[in-house]
């Protein structure tokens, strides 16, 4: 029976039915659900690894041992996993190995919009790119086969729109792929120069073989609809092109963006009068077409920025003289309205610590997670956000550059999961190369932004079963930091004391700001607070917190009782004792 599946669930079914036995991943929007859906199966092993490099290497180990394996990550996660990727290309695989990577054009939830296709080209591995959930299912399933057949890891490229769109998918049955026998193959798997030099020509030969496959495979197909216009496209751009042109133009749909075919493109180009290339982000297909000496129109019409849609395509082709007489006509113009950006939740434990940092005019190097939202008004707490772990590594460099001038006035903030991911090594550097830096671990006992995944500090694994729990205090001490203290971010006085004392101290320190995410099911909420209008002087001090539950009405503070979780942080700020559980409204 056909089921409505988001792209990520379709990938999960494809991998599962393709005989997957092991998947190790790190959560990252928009890739997270692939692994979450696989975790519903008890006959395979699923896990959250501390980061994408570990995940990819765990998948490598499983493949080496003869199992079909995978890892999943967002586009920037592949930067972290790039080290194993480039040499996995040389070793090849035993059990099929699929690396699922999800790009995020338009940066719905990311810090950049890099194009993962460059990795497939640079690492010399095949990449498959589905256009919808049905293809995501089919491509994921066959990627495991392809991997074994060509002795290579295969990258499955998703993007936000395909990962999080649903369409009907016919889901078949699981085909068991028994563990392959483990045979020592030193020249294949020990990548030291003598062996790697022998492997490299095999990589080049493999790419030649794959190029031959690209000429004639189910992934790339021609829809021949006349000779006037030809469009080469891939991914969701294909859907938008079909939406606009239907069956009125010829299309070469690319499902394998690396390696790209040559003859197929030459023949297609020769069959049409005018050739266009429609692809989101970078001109990867376009550059390939041009390198073949074929004239085409691509990025001169289409932006390398953001997501496309049918509207993008119509707008672009209007410039080429297409009238689109039946194009949609809007009812009217929307009025201008205030924006509604995402924000930290009411009762978010990060808020109290951020408030303390802002109040003390501290320079804050930020990191990746919910707490990146500390950057928005009214807190405006952050000075930088680069990538996972960069707060901890960065503060060291910052203090190296400016010494005593900044050491007592600067902190790094990083979440528990991000600290596990790549904060630890930065902390080692602080201790080892001795800057007087202060790191605040915002420990909310969960990987928050991606939708609540367990991590090594939570004490539970992906299935919710009890697991080994990292002792953050002991870990920081073991890494060489003698001053480690824990503070409750709902206690503003304690936060203030901790921040002042650790910044004054003449040695590096870690403050663990610890309180579970307010959205966790086991977290008990307090009674919503009230504002005593008689006592409130309208000083707006509580407004500095940027809590969505607190606003001003007729010159007095007001608390939205449907949002307030009774954390009490605003009450601690009130100089007139106007906020409390029992306050009269």
């Amino acid at each position, binding site marked *: 029976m*056909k089921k*409505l599946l988001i792209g990520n669930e379709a990938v999960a079914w494809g991998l599962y039915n393709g005989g997957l036995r092991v998947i190790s991943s790190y959560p990252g*929007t*928009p890739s997270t659900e692939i692994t979450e859906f696989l975790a519903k199966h008890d006959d395979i092993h699923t896990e959250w690894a501390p980061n994408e490099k570990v995940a990819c290497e765990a998948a490598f180990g499983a493949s080496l041992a003869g199992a079909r394996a995978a890892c999943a990550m967002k586009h920037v996660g592949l930067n972290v996993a790039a080290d194993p990727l480039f040499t996995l290309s040389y070793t090849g695989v035993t059990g099929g190995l699929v690396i699922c990577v999800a790009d995020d054009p338009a940066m*719905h*939830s990311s810090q950049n919009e890099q194009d993962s296709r460059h990795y497939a080209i640079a690492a010399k591995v095949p990449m498959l790119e589905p256009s*919808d959930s049905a293809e995501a299912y089919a491509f994921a399933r066959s990627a495991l086969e392809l991997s074994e057949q060509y002795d290579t890891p295969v990258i499955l490229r998703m993007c*936000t*729109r395909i990962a*999080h*769109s*649903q*369409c*009907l998918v016919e889901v078949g049955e699981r085909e068991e792929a028994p563990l392959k026998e483990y045979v020592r193959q030193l020249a294949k798997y020990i990548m030291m120069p003598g062996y790697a030099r022998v492997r490299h020509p095999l990589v080049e030969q493999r790419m030649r073989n794959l190029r031959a496959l690209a000429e004639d495979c189910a992934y790339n197909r021609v829809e021949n609809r006349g000779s006037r216009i030809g469009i080469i496209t891939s991914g*969701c751009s294909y*859907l*938008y092109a*079909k*939406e606009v042109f239907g069956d009125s133009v010829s299309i070469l749909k690319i499902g394998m963006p690396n390696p790209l075919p040559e003859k197929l493109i030459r023949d297609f180009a020769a069959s049409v009068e005018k050739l266009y290339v429609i692809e989101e982000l970078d001109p990867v297909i376009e550059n390939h077409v041009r390198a073949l000496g074929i004239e085409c129109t691509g990025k001169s019409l289409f932006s390398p920025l953001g997501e496309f*849609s*049918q*509207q993008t395509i119509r707008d672009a082709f209007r410039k080429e003289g297409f009238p689109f007489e039946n*194009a*949609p*006509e*809007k*009812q*009217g*113009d*929307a*009025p201008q*309205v*205030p*924006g*509604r*950006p*995402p*924000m*930290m*939740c009411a009762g978010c434990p990060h808020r109290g610590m951020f408030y303390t940092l802002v109040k003390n005019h501290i320079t804050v190097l930020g990191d990746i997670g*919910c707490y990146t*939202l500390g950057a*928005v*008004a*009214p807190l405006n707490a952050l000075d930088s956000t680069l990538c996972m772990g960069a707060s901890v590594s960065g503060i060291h460099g910052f203090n190296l550059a400016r010494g005593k001038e900044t050491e007592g006035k600067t902190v790094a903030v990083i979440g528990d999961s991000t600290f596990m991911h790549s904060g630890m090594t930065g902390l080692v550097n602080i201790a080892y190369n001795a800057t007087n830096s202060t790191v605040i671990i915002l420990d909310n006992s969960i990987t928050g*932004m*991606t*939708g609540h995944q367990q991590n090594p500090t939570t004490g539970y694994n992906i299935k919710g079963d009890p697991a080994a729990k990292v002792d953050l205090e002991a870990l920081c001490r073991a890494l060489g930091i003698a001053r480690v203290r824990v503070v409750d971010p709902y206690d503003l006085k304690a936060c203030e004391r901790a921040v002042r004392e650790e910044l004054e101290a003449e040695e590096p320190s870690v403050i663990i700001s610890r309180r579970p995410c307010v959205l966790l099911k086991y977290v008990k909420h307090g009674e919503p607070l009230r504002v005593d209008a008689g006592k409130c002087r309208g000083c707006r001090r509580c*407004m500095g917190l*940027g809590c*969505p539950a*607190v*606003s*001003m009405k007729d010159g007095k503070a007001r608390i939205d009782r*449907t949002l307030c979780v009774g954390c009490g942080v605003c009450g601690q700020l009130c100089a007139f004792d106007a906020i409390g559980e029992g306050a009269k409204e």
Partner: protein
Amino acid sequence: MKTTSIMIVGVGGQGSLLASRLLGNLLTAEGYDVKLSEVHGMSQRGGSVVTYVRYGEKVYSPVVTEGECDFIISFEKLEAARYADCLRRGGKIIVNTQEIDPMPVITGAAEYPSGILDELKARGFDVDAFDALTPAMEAGSAKAVNIVLMGHFAARSGIAKEKWTAALEQTVPARFLDMNRKAFEAGYGG
């Protein structure tokens, strides 16, 4: 047949996901080709959220763009206005009259526009505004606003009511079914 496009818009946490799942199940059971699209991530943290639902004989694009939308179902007043450019000529906006202040309003950097629905009507939009929050609370929870709205839309969808209730049973967990049935009925008759 022509593809029909619906947008469900609101504020992160209002339950638009369940509403779109209900629509997805209904339209699949009706035998249509269906595409749904939503964006997770940052938008879950109280930001503006939009889900696209498209159905017909053959649907390609999962997204709805300017002038394409047949129905905008909005969980909140501002959000109805935010996406109004997407409404096609002759399309309809169904909107819950609830107001949720966005951060720029909370901090005083902007004002919640008063009379925003009248402004939309003045600009020629067909606006069907009603209070979905009160019947939701009467049914048992403010969270049932999503199903009240879907009930209201159901009565205008051209799809038989029993098909809707069957899809509702398929979509909602059993322990919340009674509450959601009440919410759906309130919206259907509202």
